[in-house]
């Protein structure tokens, strides 16, 4: 019987080494996966060092962004130097006298000497006691400039002549004393003065009515017509003497426009224009770091720009009832919302032209719905909702509150701007993360 011989174990070292080398990678993988409690400290340390590396990378990215900005000096000049120049220009032009002290050209027609027939007893009267006193009152009023006076009894085409003058722009208002003016006052009834203001320019209607009211005040006081209501006005949150009311009120609009608009323009091309982004993605730089570095860079530019605007405003005599810090923060927040909007436009645009056109659409809508041209309260509800979503409608009340009322920056408008900015930044990050690049 043949015995089966046990095969002796072969101890060929080279084969063993080969086998180990085959097993080693998978063993290493297991080794990596197995947690090592003793190494916790090291892991923590590595996290810190990772953070340091990331921070350094972002820092270098920021420097790169600044270099990129520096290559276009003309653009930087426009963004940083021109806005303060506009403020200075406004400062020089807006120091004129307030509009209420400018007299309004008018014509006065009196029908008071015509025959008045009393409807109750059909008696006739030609009383004309108050025409000349009212003419004197108009002449006394610094808000009215009497171009011509007509007595309609003698000049029957007086109203036509006055209307032609109104149409041609020679005068802004026609004043007319009706046939029963003296009679009604004598009967203890209200004396009515008809006024026909040029209503084609909505800004001047109120000014015209104010000037007529001024002449009425003079008329009743001079002729001792009592009882009259004495109105005593006190203005709260007014601008002290020595400061220009016009400059202060126009700068609020100009500042929010400029800060928002320039931040928007500066950032609309940051992603869509930069060609090396695709190649950057081959390096360890993360997408979030690229976007973050852009935000840091443009935020620093914004800080510099806002500082210059505040300084130029103060130099030109801007009155601030609140604190300068609040004004700075408010301007920064308005600018930051523009920056967030710009980066959002850039991240979702495929080409530069698209970004430019989107900018135009967003800016035009934001400007027209900002409440400067049409009061937001006068818009229908759906439009009010859109207006309040857009950042520019919050700029004017926020700045006005700080500049003239001394309000704190931390209010509903600031919070809303912050919320809009955060939402836009998050969306931009998400879009940029998913953006496809061809290297």
């Amino acid at each position, binding site marked *: 019987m043949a015995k089966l011989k046990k095969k002796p174990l072969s101890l060929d070292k080279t084969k063993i080494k080969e086998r180990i080398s085959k097993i080693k990678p998978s063993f290493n993988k297991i080794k990596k996966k197995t947690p090592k409690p003793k190494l916790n400290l090291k892991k923590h340390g590595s996290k810190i060092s990772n953070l340091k590396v990331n921070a350094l990378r972002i820092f270098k990215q920021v420097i790169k962004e600044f270099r990129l900005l520096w290559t276009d000096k003309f653009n930087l000049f426009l963004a940083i130097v021109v806005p303060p120049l506009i403020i200075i220009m406004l400062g020089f032009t807006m120091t004129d006298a307030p509009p209420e002290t400018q007299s309004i050209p008018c014509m006065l027609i009196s029908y008071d000497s015509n025959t008045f027939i009393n409807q109750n007893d059909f008696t006739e009267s030609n009383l004309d006691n108050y025409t000349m006193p009212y003419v004197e009152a108009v002449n006394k009023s610094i808000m009215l400039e009497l171009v011509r006076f007509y007595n309609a009894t003698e000049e029957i085409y007086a109203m036509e002549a006055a209307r032609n003058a109104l149409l041609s722009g020679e005068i802004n208002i026609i004043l007319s004393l009706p046939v029963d003016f003296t009679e009604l006052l004598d009967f203890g009834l*209200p004396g009515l003065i008809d006024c026909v203001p040029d209503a084609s320019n909505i800004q001047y209607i109120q000014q015209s009515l104010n000037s007529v009211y001024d002449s009425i005040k003079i008329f009743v006081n001079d002729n001792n017509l009592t009882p009259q209501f004495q109105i005593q006005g006190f203005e709260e949150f007014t601008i002290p003497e020595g400061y220009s009311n016009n400059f202060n009120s126009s700068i609020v609009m100009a500042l929010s426009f400029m800060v928002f608009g320039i931040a928007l323009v500066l950032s609309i091309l940051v992603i869509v224009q930069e060609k090396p982004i695709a190649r950057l993605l081959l390096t360890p730089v993360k997408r979030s770091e690229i976007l973050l570095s852009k935000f840091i860079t443009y935020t620093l530019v914004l800080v510099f720009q806002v500082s210059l605007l505040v300084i130029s405003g103060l130099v030109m005599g801007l009155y601030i009832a609140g604190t300068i810090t609040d004004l700075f923060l408010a301007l920064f927040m308005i600018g930051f919302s523009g920056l967030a909007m710009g980066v959002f436009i850039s991240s979702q645009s495929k080409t*530069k032209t698209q970004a430019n056109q989107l900018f135009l659409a967003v800016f035009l809508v934001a400007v027209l719905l900002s409440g400067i041209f049409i009061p937001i309260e006068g818009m229908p509800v759906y439009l009010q909702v859109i207006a309040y979503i857009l950042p520019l409608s919050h700029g004017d009340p926020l700045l006005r509150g700080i500049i003239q009322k001394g309000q704190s920056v931390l209010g509903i408008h600031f919070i809303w701007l912050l919320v809009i900015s955060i939402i836009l930044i998050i969306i931009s990050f998400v879009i940029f993360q998913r953006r496809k690049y061809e290297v």
Partner: protein
Amino acid sequence: MYLGGLIRKEFGRIRSDKRTLILLFVIPVILILVFGLTTGGGLTKFFTSAIITLDDMPTYDNFPSNSSEYDDNFISIMQYNTSSWGFHSYYNATDLDEYKNAYQTCYEILRSGDIDIIIVLPSNFSESVENKTNPVLIYHIDASDLAAITAIEVAIQEPIALFRAETDMMANFTIMVPYLEFDVPFWESAILNYALPLILPIIILGTTMNLTSLSIVAEGPLPRMLITPTAKREIILSKLIANSIIMLLQSTEIFILTAFFGLYSLGSLFSFFLVLIMIGFSGICIGLFISALSPTEQSANQMYLIMFIIIILFSGSILPLGETEGGMQIFMNMLPLSNAVPLITDITLKGLPPDLTSIFWINLSSLIYVTLAYFIYMFKKLEV
């Protein structure tokens, strides 16, 4: 011969960017639609008030009757009967401490912007009404709103008139009765028609400036074209013609849309259309000037924006053109809005023919911008 080809090339370039074209024609549609559907009386100043009455406080001197009857009438009128006033709250103060507290509360409401004015009825209010002497009304107004300051004294005449009628105080009362001339009739959209003279030029200028502000600076092959016999003036001219044709189409679209959405025009519609075209042409010339001057696309965008802001700020809406002098007046005349707004107002609301001086300034400024664009482009160094 070259020019025809260049214009065709320009159209090809504009057509290749369909999104630009769509936006160019869609933005005005949206904006006019938005403003055309906007109705309501938002153009008149509407006041919201809080009232503090001191009428219950004792009075001495000439007022022995110590009445406090009429303050309730006045408050009731303010609350229910006025058309241009809103009512927030009222406070009855019977001594000075209560008045101080009430005033402090009202001051904070005024500061928050919820009200425009605090009205204080003094302690002798009812007595003055009873004795037919001059009653006093005290108000504290939010002066940060310039429109409110200018409108208050006239606006308060409405509740006063109603109060005088109710309390039989009509003797010696003199009041004005306004009849607005050249205003927008009540059946037309007041907001649209009052806003049109400013908004239409802004839309046209904004879109045409944007269309052309990148036309030179963003066109890559342009320097290489200079190797060919094409002259620089032909390039500028072809851009001017091509963009003007686009602008013409856009102006026609805006004209039809505004007419459809309730344009109220007493004057000639042809003049109105002509003015729109002139404004558009001015926008193109400014855009070309910006494009020729700017070294990069971003600079062109930046310049476009700054120019746009300057045009709006010095449009005459904030600082009227007539109130400026010398250099400032010339500067404002060189910006299209300062002449475009009165031109459109005169045509639509007054029915006047176009003012020749305004037309002269708009066209002169366009000519200057396009000439400057040509010279800048002539001397611009381009790398082929």
